[in-house]
């Protein structure tokens, strides 16, 4: 494994241009001052949490995710290359979804095996033959990207069901601007605060034909770990935050229950999983959903974002085919790399994986949150052997990838400023009118030294992500 790319320092110890001002500031600021600011940040998060409906104990467990006060910095040129690749990928995923739920040309062409779609749990038969507004499925995509070199970005995972994290992107920026106005004066950081507005426009663009579409955010409720984000987005878009029980179906339309009487709803930004949307069409035990919702959706009288059934495109078993999708649907070469992936279901791949467990990362096909995975290089022999048994028993549940050296970014830890591994989750908005992307992302950082796991459930933190405008005054 080659050494991780340090985003601030070159191998010879010199500072990369994009970090020069930040590095100077870090050097000139005593650790005690940074520590005071860090505490202030914590306090601010708590207070913000309170203004954002979290209200007391319980609800703010999410907010306890540690925040690192050192921003992670990208140049505009880097961002442009990255965003071109993201847009390309998101378009290809959308084309794939349309195809999967219509003629399945890609299967006929032999580029993706039929069984990996037809027998995929995430393939929603109910969506077959249905044209969602604008032919769009993944209106909101959160693509996990890691950097391994100066100009080398890999996509680790496509999240196009109900991706979360964008509220951290926005809040981390808000806190940074309050804490370090002097840094913003010295840097030309591209603004990201228009994200809620862009999201609203995207949602409006897929509305059924009405004069002024009514948009709502549908949440599972206050007990959900992402409830904070749901209420944050609803508030910043200026739309109602609803639960399933606030909505009902009547004569082919969806209505919201208000004291004034039923109010028609046109677009639902739903933050609940497919299975729970409509107990008459999907999981009959769902109490979160709206009976009959799916019929209204199929009739075209309400739009859902994201569409039902997007999971078939971001499934780990489908991931290896994304580059092929880009070639097949767009006739282009992928701009962002896919991590080589071994599908343990295939005998040849499985043999390789079992022989190289100490080098590979092995993940569950349906897993998430960094659970149930093996990181070969950092695991003990016992852990590897235990995993070998699991893998041998149910190989179809696993995929494996080479361990990537995630890039590092300077991070304020107990010992002072030190490099820690980071990933990046930018959000792409695909509307019927255009693609929208704000120059920023949700950066997760593995706070433990040497750790490659950035998931918040496994000791990860967050950072503000800066994209610096080109014409920066020196």
């Amino acid at each position, binding site marked *: 494994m080659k050494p991780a790319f340090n985003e601030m320092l070159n191998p010879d110890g010199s500072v990369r241009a994009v970090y020069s001002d930040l590095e100077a500031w870090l050097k000139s600021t005593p650790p005690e001052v940074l520590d005071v600011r860090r505490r202030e940040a914590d306090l601010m998060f708590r207070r913000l949490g309170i203004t954002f409906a979290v209200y007391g104990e319980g609800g703010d467990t999410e907010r306890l995710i540690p925040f690192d006060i050192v921003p992670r910095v990208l140049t505009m040129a880097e961002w442009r290359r990255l965003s071109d690749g993201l847009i390309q990928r998101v378009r290809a995923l959308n084309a794939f979804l349309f195809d999967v739920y219509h003629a399945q040309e890609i299967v006929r062409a032999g580029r993706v095996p*039929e*069984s990996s779609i*037809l*027998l995929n749990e995430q393939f929603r*038969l*109910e*969506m*077959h*033959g*249905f044209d969602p507004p604008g032919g769009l499925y993944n209106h909101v995509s959160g693509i996990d990207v890691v950097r391994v070199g100066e100009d080398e970005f890999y996509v680790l995972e496509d999240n196009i069901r109900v991706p979360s994290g964008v509220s951290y992107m926005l809040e981390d920026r808000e806190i940074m601007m309050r804490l370090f106005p002097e840094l913003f004066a010295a840097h030309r950081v591209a603004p990201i605060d228009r994200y809620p507005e862009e999201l609203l426009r995207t949602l409006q663009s897929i509305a059924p034909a009405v004069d002024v579409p009514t948009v709502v955010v549908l949440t599972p409720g206050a007990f959900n770990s992402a409830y904070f984000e749901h209420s944050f987005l609803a508030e910043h878009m200026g739309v109602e935050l609803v639960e399933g029980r606030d909505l*009902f*179906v*009547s*004569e*082919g339309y969806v*209505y919201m229950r208000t004291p004034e009487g*039923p109010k028609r709803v046109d677009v639902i930004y739903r933050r609940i999983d497919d299975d729970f949307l409509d*107990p*008459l*069409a999907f999981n*009959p035990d769902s109490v979160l959903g709206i*009976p*009959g919702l799916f*019929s209204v959706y*199929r*009739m075209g009288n309400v739009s859902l974002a994201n569409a039902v059934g997007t999971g078939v495109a971001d499934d780990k078993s489908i991931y290896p085919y994304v580059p092929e999708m880009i070639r097949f649907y767009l006739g282009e070469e992928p701009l962002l790399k896919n991590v080589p992936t071994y599908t343990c279901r295939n005998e040849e791949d499985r043999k390789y994986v079992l022989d190289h467990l100490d080098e590979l990362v092995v993940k569950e096909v349906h897993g998430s949150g960094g659970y149930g995975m093996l990181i070969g290089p950092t695991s003990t022999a016992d852990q590897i052997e235990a995993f070998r048994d699991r893998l041998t028993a149910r190989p179809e549940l696993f995929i494996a990838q080479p361990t990537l050296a995630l890039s590092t970014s300077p991070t304020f830890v107990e010992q002072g400023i030190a490099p820690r591994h980071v990933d990046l989750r930018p959000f792409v908005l695909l509307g019927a009118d255009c693609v929208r992307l704000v120059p920023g992302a949700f950066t997760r950082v593995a706070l433990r030294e040497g750790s490659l796991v950035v998931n918040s459930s496994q000791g990860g933190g967050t950072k503000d992500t800066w994209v610096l405008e080109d014409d920066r005054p020196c």
Partner: protein
Amino acid sequence: MQFRVEHDTVYSYGETALYSAQYLRLTPRHHDHQDVWGWSVKSNVPLVSFADAFGNVVHVLTLAARHREIRVNVRGNATTRDTHGILPVEPEPFPPAVYLRATGYTEVDEALKDFTEDHRAVVGRNTIGGLHGLMAAIGERVSYEIGVTHVRTTASQAFVEGSGVCQDHAHIFIACCRQLGIPARYVSGYLWVNPDDNDYDANHAWAEAFVPDLGWISFDVANRMSATDAYLRVAMGLDYSGAAPLLGIRRGGGDEKMDVRVRVSQFDTRREARVHARDQQ
């Protein structure tokens, strides 16, 4: 065979119900072997309809006002032709492999798996003969009895019980087929029964299995036969949940009383032919 279907359902509630929603799959489609005319689904509640991914016509019943009763009335006529249990070839929404998907209703436990494996060799040698054998074996093992199982009973549960209704029979058959790698699906419909024979409900369900070179073949475990011209095919899906005639949910209402009357009657061909002609004018 020509027959007329009259199917009335009345739900009455012990207390005032506040909201009701139902998906009704009660409208048969035309196939080469079944001609449908004068078909209507009516209710005291407004209905809208759409076609689901399997091509089934779904009426959606919603009532967002206080109510104590819901009525659904189906009337219609059909002419059917005996095709020896083979569904005439027509455009299908999905390739057969889709019908290998496991569902909640058709998951197999160890007992059902063992039972199925006994048939693997025979089915491997002669698919159609093997499946008829499987159908007979299920019929033998699981007797037709009302009241032991309920609408949420799975194939494995009914198999353990050793008794069930046509829904359970169909689920067990489908589960076994999928376990053997044979695509299979659930069909709901109407069955004309000889007026002297009161054993069976005219509301019926059976299974279809895909046999290469032949196509979709029907298997009615409850009656241990393939569908004849006494069968009217209405809706199909992976299991009951995708083909159920009535599937509903409500708020309030207390105890529900459901009164169902189904009449499937053969009628005078000549007289109805005139009616048919008039319908078409």
